[in-house]
């Protein structure tokens, strides 16, 4: 608790960013995000866009798994549904991106509603298998429904365009991605200040008690699936404009698992956690790669040995996090924040 931090109104108590320090840091973050594209090159911008797209998906999975306690191994498939819906809307119906991306979100949302139905009866690992089935089925559909999805060759999409402004370079796409990611992070944070959001948490903590308190389990669980898939669908729609092409191989099971890794490493059930986790899982392997690249200066031959080591180091880091901070990166950041709350005085 910060000294002298009194809440004098309900609005102050419910504020997302409660202290001047938090608001100042938010300002710094926004300023950094605004300046970044003018300093960074193509490579960093491309990675930033990738992180932004995946972050929206990770926020969605965190709503379902982190907040509502429903595990899903089909998140990549929902992203795929969104991507294909957006690509079809953009290419067949000439929809502009601001229509195509939401169409992707809505399509994934509907798919999520169907896949979520078994969650009423089955829980935990069994639900993981049921959602795994969704992953396999959707992947099969992407590959074989050639008339719509273009089969294995997929669909090529032109860059997004708004009032004659083309989002054709990484720098331009960056603004689109950051705007959408920020908007969705804000919505997700707000969601948990509503009745629905609290009902999600109640279901995660104890579903029977939640039902006794008047939470309609069926409706709420389906809603969690729908919102989560909507986020995945938006991520998918944005992915189409980021990658300019969508193929069935863009949404494999390994991506679903990567999403789970993101929210576990970042911190289950926290908004920041989803964002930290995405940054960690996407950028740390790239950082390690750049480090191994240095070995090329010493001996080009050694690279073939150094490259696989990177995966081992990355794996060890994830295990290390789980052992030393099971609540993820978000908790580490919180601890640092608490340390500085009274700094330089001891607790």
């Amino acid at each position, binding site marked *: 608790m910060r000294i002298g931090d009194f809440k004098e109104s309900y609005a102050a108590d419910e504020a997302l960013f409660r202290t001047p320090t938090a608001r100042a840091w938010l300002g710094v973050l926004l300023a950094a995000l605004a300046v970044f594209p003018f300093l960074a*090159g*193509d*490579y960093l911008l*491309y*990675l930033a866009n*990738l992180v932004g797209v995946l972050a929206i998906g990770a926020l969605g999975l965190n709503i379902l798994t982190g907040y509502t306690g429903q595990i899903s191994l089909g998140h990549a498939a929902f992203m795929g549904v969104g991507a294909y819906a957006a690509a079809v809307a953009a290419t067949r119906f000439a929809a502009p991106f601001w229509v195509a991306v939401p169409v992707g979100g809505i399509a994934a949302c509907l798919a999520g509603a169907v896949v979520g139905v078994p969650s009423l009866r089955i829980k935990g690992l069994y639900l993981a298998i049921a959602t795994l089935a969704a992953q396999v089925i959707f992947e099969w559909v992407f*590959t*074989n429904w050639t008339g719509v999805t273009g*089969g*294995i*060759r*997929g669909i*090529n999409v032109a*860059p997004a365009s708004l009032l004659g402004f083309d989002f*054709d*370079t*990484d720098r331009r796409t960056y603004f689109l991605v950051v705007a959408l990611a920020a908007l969705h992070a804000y919505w997700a944070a707000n969601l948990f200040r509503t009745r629905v959001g609290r009902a999600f948490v109640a279901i995660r903590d104890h579903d029977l008690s939640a039902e006794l308190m008047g939470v309609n389990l069926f409706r709420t669980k389906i809603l969690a699936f729908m919102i989560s898939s909507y986020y995945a669908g938006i991520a998918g729609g944005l992915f189409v404009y980021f*990658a*300019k*092409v969508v*193929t*069935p*191989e*863009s949404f494999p099971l390994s991506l679903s698992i990567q999403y789970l890794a993101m929210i576990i490493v970042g911190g289950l059930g926290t908004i920041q956690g989803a964002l930290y986790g995405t940054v960690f899982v996407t950028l740390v*392997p*790239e950082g390690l*790669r750049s480090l*191994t*690249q240095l070995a090329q200066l010493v001996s*080009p031959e050694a*690279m*073939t040995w150094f*490259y*696989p080591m*990177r*995966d081992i180091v990355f794996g060890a880091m994830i295990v290390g996090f789980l052992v030393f901070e099971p609540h993820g990166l978000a908790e580490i950041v919180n601890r640092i924040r608490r340390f500085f709350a009274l700094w330089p005085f001891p607790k």
Partner: protein
Amino acid sequence: MTCSRTKKLLLAAICALAVPSARAADEEIKIGACQPITGRFAFAGAQLNAGLADYIAHANEQGIVKGKKLVYIYEDTGYDTEKAVATFKKMMAQHSPVIMYGESTGQGKAIAPELNSRYKVLYGSTSFSSELADPKTHPYSFVSGPTYSDQFGILLDYIVKHPKKGKPKVAFFYSDTEFGKDPIVWAKKRAGELGIDVVAEVVTKVGAVDVTTEVLTLKQAQPDYVIFQGYVLAPIPEVIRAARDHGLETTFMSTFWSMDRAIIEKLGPDAEGYMGVNPYAYWWEDAPGIAAMREYNRKAHPEVTYRPNSYIQGWFTGMVYVESIRRVVAAKKPVTGDNLKDALATIKDWDTGGVTGKVTFVNNKAAVGRVYRANVQKTTFEPASDWIYLK
């Protein structure tokens, strides 16, 4: 007086600074590569990388491009399309090479819009996808040899010339991946034109283990030839064994990735009669181009006793790069992606010293290959045909 002396000094200083840097920039020609050294494709990635790197080093030694030094830079991508695209951009920003090499079909597709509009470098890759050999959508990319469709075309050509009895019957056995399905539509059309019956089509997962039902399908269809596509090893050995158990007398054939010595070792005696198409000659062949490659390995990597066909694909891609550069330099043009792409299109009846047949690039690919048959005793492949050229 002093003014003009200062001017002269300044001029001299500028010249001293500008000339060496300009010359250094002229002499080095950079070739970048995004290589799948880790990940699912690692079995080939490390060899592709070694082949490409070795040929470029070999070309430097031989001084094939006069007055220029070729510099090879590579990074691992882990066989991940997004990471590969990121690596591509990173390398372009750091080194601005005039030639790039890509790790997969997916990367080729994802990078195409920016390759055509911004980067404009010559782009070769591991892929034999026919999509990347379309000069309309991918003017800067090329396929290092025949596409998968061409490889099927070469096999079908061979089958027509070697009928077993009556009208030839073939079956296509492929995986439900991009790699598996790529040539199938074209191959069915081609078979129709050649008067070959496609009596069965079997589609499986890549790692399929239980192939009983698939083999029964083959047994019912009784094809003279079965062509595999979209696998490396599994389930090819399983299918061939089960087919032999069922007494099926079919000739099994494959395309490039399943035509390495590894498959003969895996099949053992069942490899008898196994055939397929390879765009390049093998490590043990007597052609002068291959002998030069063995000689280079003997000097640079004395521990190496064998190089798989993926290494030779990398080596050949290096040859195409260097030949394009040589042509641009010989024409006294600046070495840019646009000039390299145009130079590639002029390659006609090019003698590679037997690394492959006579190479002519039409539609960004060289549709040549040879049919080989396994020799179980020697665990080698031996030519079953001469170089076959597709029109």
